[in-house]
């Protein structure tokens, strides 16, 4: 569980601010970013720009994922088979690439969320115990 804890630790310290920017830390945060992207897609099909917007809305403007981090993560998720992609015409009339959660992606999201919840619960308990 070590990596997950340190990931969470970093997550807290960074206060949700531009944490997905630094390249070296990308590995550390990969799993979390993946989960967030999957979560944003769980509400429906989206293009890359839409994913960023939705994450911002959902986090009350606290979380700003940079494009430079988003796309590599998206492609990796696509290679894992968790999302599928297709080019389609956007409502503005522009062509955009839309991503959609696959069945295995949904399953992965569920397990990720469950383990995240457990972790948060555990850490919360520990913090309550020490304070």
């Amino acid at each position, binding site marked *: 569980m070590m990596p997950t804890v340190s990931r969470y630790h970093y997550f807290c310290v960074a206060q949700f601010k531009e944490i997905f920017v630094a390249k070296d830390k990308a590995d550390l945060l990969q799993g979390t970013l993946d989960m967030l992207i999957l979560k944003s897609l769980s509400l429906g099909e989206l293009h890359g720009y839409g994913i960023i917007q939705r994450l911002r809305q959902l986090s009350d403007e606290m979380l700003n994922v940079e494009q*430079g981090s988003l796309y590599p993560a998206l492609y990796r998720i696509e290679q894992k088979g968790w999302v599928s992609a297709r080019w389609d015409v956007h409502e503005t009339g522009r062509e955009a690439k839309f991503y959609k959660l696959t069945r295995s992606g949904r399953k992965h999201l569920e397990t990720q969320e469950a383990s995240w919840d457990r972790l948060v619960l555990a850490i919360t308990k520990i913090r309550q115990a020490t304070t």
Partner: protein
Amino acid sequence: MKWFNVLRDRLRALRRRDSVINDIDREMRTHLHLQIEANIKAGMSPDEAREKAMRSFGNVNRAVDAAYDVKGGGLFETLAQDVRYGTRVLLKHKAFTLIAVSTLALGIGANSAIFSVVNELLLRPLPYQDPDRIVMLWEVSPGGRHQNTTSRANFRAWRAQSTSYEDMAAFSDQRLTLTGNFEPEEVSGQLALPEIFKVLGVQPILGRTLLPDDAQPKSPLVAVLSYGLWQRRFGGQPNAIGQPITLSGNKFEVVGVMPPNFQFHIKQRSGTGRPAEVWIVLPMPTNSTENERGRFLSTVAKLKPGVSAEQAAAELRTIEARLSDEVPEFNKNYSAEVLPLREQFFGNVRRPLWLMLGAVGFVLLIACANVANLLLSLATSREKEIALRAALGARRSRIVRQLLTESLLLALLGSALGLGVAWLGIKALPLISPRDVVSLQGVSLNSSVLLWTLGVSILTGIIFGLAPALHISRLNLNDSLKEGGKADSGQATGSRRMRSVLVVSEIALAVVLLASAGLLVRSFIRLQQVDRGFNTDNVLSMVVRLPFARYPEDAQLVQFFNQSMERMRNLPGVRSAGMVNFLPLYGGLGSSTGFKIIGRPEPPPGQGPSCDVRVVDAGYFATLGIPILRGRNFSEIEQREAKRVVLINEALARKHFPNQDPIGQRLDVAMFETPVVTEIVGVVGNVRYDSLIDEAPGAVYFTHPDLPYPFMTLVLRTDGDPTAIAPVVQREIRALDPNQPVSDVRTMDQVMSEAVSRSRFNTFLLALFAGLATLLSAVGIFGVMNYSVALRTREIGLRLAVGAQPRQVLLLVLKQGLALTVMGVGLGLLAAFALTRLLTGLLFGVEAVDATTFATISLLLVFVSLFACYLPARRAMRIDPMRALRYE
């Protein structure tokens, strides 16, 4: 699925890089535009919206790159890049590539060739069913002789009392005369119990094998043919089944044909010296005691699953001990042993083979060191290029990977060419390999050899590439990019040190190989110089084997051979002729027969003296140049009638009649059913019959009438080339008996040559590898000195300019080379002291640490490397000071 998607993406990127990048670019641009539109919607001016969007996006190119790293790029793409680039580098430096690749080809080729032999003999499963459970059962004589054949009685006891085996079969290889409406031919037959086919688990391609019913008394005589004999005699016709053949005068019915690759040949105790071509049932008469106790049977058995050879051996020793108690007069002090089949076949070649593999490994290491040296030179000339790449942002690992790719390319090229070398080697090996040891026919470049070669080449690529790659990637950028700072820079010194280390290790490795080869060469020479006790010049030998069916009476044998000897002696060009049942150094059974000296107290059973028994005629000694030391030769009448006289050799006389005249003493040699007392009439010189290595044991010579043998080896000493007379001799024999073949026609020189063939083979191969190692290390030291002279051009020019003599410059360079050589030789000698011990067993008449050999090869290597240094030294001497100084 993940790896598959990644692979698909990356391969697509590899093929259509532009379209993948376009796709990413398009997606990013859409993103940007959506952002701009959102900004405008939020009330910004178009310019402001664009600028803000661009700023929030960051560096677009970097974003595209990062995304592309996922889609394409990665190992595949950089590998493709590196291969392309490496190919260009290798093509640009053609001379370097040529030298490096051919060096590696020699090293890798030698490795693959030897490995193919190791694989065939030591690693590949034997071509029988469950070969790991097949074992050979032997007796060990009281004299400690291993792998002794056993008797019918003892075999029966083994079979009845043991529980370790599924099946057990006795067999005996014997020569049979095949006659019919064609020229009579001698074939090698395996007389075996039918269970042998169950033990080996091999099916016939036609008909059936021998079955237990065939071994019942009064069942019809049947024969199973080898594929070769079936092709030769029946033209490969299926209707051969059911046909009769005549073997040594008896009619057999052909019932089966074995597959082409099937053979079961235990060379050590074979009475024929070659693989069987026909299998017939070994008679096991139960009612007679005749031959019940003669030891002539080999035994093969299949262990039950889960039973180890050690357990089986323990059981067999218990049974043998019981036999020793029950029948002491035959079995006293006999023991038994169980040998796994692979051990039986290849036990005697395993050690030399692993040694050879080690030797070619050394050669390959030397080749690697050489190529590493070459790569260092190449890298030095590419310092600027690599520094530039580093300056442009290439990471160190990336540069190392690039350089390693180049060396792997080299290694793969080398191994491709090396396979050619190995193929030639495999073709050449059987030509020089000893026939009597193992058959190398099955050795080929099969998939395991190819796999091994691939593995070796990748490993070598990393070995010789890693050091230079690490070294060069550690370069100081500034120094390299600065013009002219090269000659005295720190890297040059570092690289020179690494080169020196490489060359010293090369020389050390070469010393070890040379020392081993030197020891083997000395042993070989010693072996040739051994006083074998006979003279081989112009002597021809051939075997005549009379079938029992046509020569049932002893008198007929004696008469036939005496008549043929008479004809031989009268042939023009024949100086003398004689005969012996078993030639020296040529198979035979190496019998050690017990004897008693009449008038001396009888020793307890199993502890009496034993001797080697040979049947000869009077002409034999003169023909082979064996001196009669005391007494007399056999007389004319003794060669026609049994007069109960024998000759003994000097060894027996010395041992048993040290202070006594052996002439007139009487012996009872246990060659007969009943005691037969014979008188010693003469003493002859010792002859090494069994091997050149062992001292001659005591020997007793009988005449033919006293101890008739159905086969004899005729020996003829001729005036000129002995082979010329062979057809004449064959004609003479056929004149006596038109149905009588002659076999094994060979000169005594050939016999001798075969006797030392194993030693010659090992010596030749190791000397070859040592020579290769020396050559390669000479090239290595040449390269280093050449490079060093090039680096020091300015310094040497300066020395010459201020008045140094060219001779001094020459000495300067030679001294430097000599220092490296001496260091290498010293280290090599230390290693040799430790390693040549492994050669024990292959050496003869020389210790594993032999001062003469070690000194000789050290001097040899010093001379070779001085010569290699001389060329660069001469170049240094001729440096033009003016030009050298201006050059910088």
